[in-house]
């Protein structure tokens, strides 16, 4: 069964830039997919379309049968959590409040605008925080945490949504190698244990190879590779990372030599 179904999606921004040029793919429920590709390939746009942060110019995204559009956005977002490169936490709120943000879609505005949550929601937040190992930081302000810890709060917020899908848009791009390892392990573990479908955009080829069930390679708004990590050879990487109009790309060779 596919959790996410992407049908002939294209996206043109108001400034004329065509970020996606006809994307068709299905993402299996409970799988761990990594999207690789150079900057500007359209990876972020693709992920943002799935959460409804962008709207497609043509085509449609379906989550478990529901089309992602303005109509049922709240309902869809409650099932599709997002983790960001810059964490995107509310700095001045406590860690636990940031995690409780994940419960907002389930609750009307009446209590939540006064920062009042049910015991049930507090329990979910507590579980999410203990999953990411930040129980002791619960009442710290979010901006007092290190980058790796902030990203773990981001993941706890996603977990608190009790989602079907977690989308992670370059979750480790701003982190050191050790924190990156932690975050990827955490995402993988969430996928394995909770059966949550995880889609991650990455820049690191080695991380993609080690953690993914499936790798999608994108270049200039198109899918140029789709297969298992074992199928990602040097020539595949050349296809994914090749740059338009550059024949002998020394930088590409050097980068891939150590990938």
């Amino acid at each position, binding site marked *: 069964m596919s959790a996410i179904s992407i049908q002939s999606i294209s996206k043109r921004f108001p400034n004329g830039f065509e970020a996606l040029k006809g994307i068709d793919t299905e993402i299996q429920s409970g799988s761990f997919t990594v999207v690789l590709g150079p900057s500007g390939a359209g990876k972020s746009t693709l992920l943002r379309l799935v*959460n409804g*942060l962008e709207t497609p110019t043509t085509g449609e995204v379906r989550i478990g049968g529901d089309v992602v559009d303005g109509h049922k*956005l*709240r*309902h*869809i*977002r*409650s099932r599709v*959590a*997002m983790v*960001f490169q*810059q*964490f*995107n*936490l*509310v*700095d*001045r*709120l406590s860690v636990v*409040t940031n995690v409780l*943000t*994940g419960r*907002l*879609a389930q609750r009307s*505005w009446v209590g*939540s*605008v006064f*920062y009042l949550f049910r015991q049930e929601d507090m329990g979910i937040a507590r579980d999410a925080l203990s999953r990411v190992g930040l129980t002791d930081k619960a009442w710290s302000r979010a901006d007092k945490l290190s980058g790796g810890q902030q990203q773990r709060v*981001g993941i706890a*917020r996603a977990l608190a*949504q009790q989602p079907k899908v977690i989308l992670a848009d370059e979750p480790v791009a701003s982190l050191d190698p050790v924190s990156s390892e932690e975050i990827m392990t955490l995402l993988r573990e969430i996928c394995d244990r909770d059966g949550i479908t995880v889609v991650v955009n990455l820049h690191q080829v080695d991380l993609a190879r080690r953690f993914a069930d499936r790798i999608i390679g994108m270049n200039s708004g198109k899918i140029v590779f789709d297969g298992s990590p074992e199928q990602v050879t040097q020539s595949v990487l050349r296809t994914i990372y090749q740059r338009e109009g*550059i024949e*002998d*790309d*020394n*930088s590409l060779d050097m980068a891939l030599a150590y990938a």
Partner: protein
Amino acid sequence: MNLHDVTSARSPAEPLPPKPRNPAPVWAAAMLAVLWLIVRDLEISFETLVYGVADMGEYFGRYREPDFTHLSRYLELMGITLATALWGTVFALLVAFFLAPLAARNFSPNAVTYRLARETLNFMRAMPDLLLALIFVAALGLGPLPGALALGVHTAGFLGKFFAESLERVDKGVCEGVASTGANFPQMVMYAGWPSILREALGYVLYILDRNVRMASVLGLVGAGGIGLALHDTLRLFDYGQSAALILVILATILIIDYASAWLRGSLG
């Protein structure tokens, strides 16, 4: 061009692209021209100012001996003025709290609401509080209430605009972070909006309070009660000693508020 070639071959550097034009001198010249035209048109005479300095010195000299015999009454009047300013500020804060998110482009639910909220704030700001006070005094009678209302309406426009602009500067990522969980409009405002601008917003409120205290002192002149009315009377009676005392009380109050708000802002970090 290949990046590698640029770094390896140390050929002479290419010339820089042409420098972009800087229009600042033209604007400055135009500004000076306008200022000169205004001076000429309004026949502003600097000679009058020079000759007037001596006269002004004599006039201010009459305030040399402040008369504090009625100090307790002055303080009571100042209290009324402060209360007027405080209520005006609270009213403004309430109105701005609900209108500002609607008038912030990134939070507003739709374009119509955004326009309406923005124009409402503009309208409130455009009505001078002195004029509003005159209207409210006519409608509600003399006393501090029309003053508080006038201040509230006028400064709600200011506060709302300040808040809306702060809200528009909230990091796009933070908004997306909260929005991506499925939060609705009131939840977005309470989670992504206000917490992010709390410090700035507090600064604006204190500034408006400070401004309202000064303005409330003047509003007395049109019958909106408080220390302004007393100052108006003593000035009419050419009682310079009492006028000086009243002015000193107002000044001291404003200074105290200034220090208090600086301290408050510092301690709330």
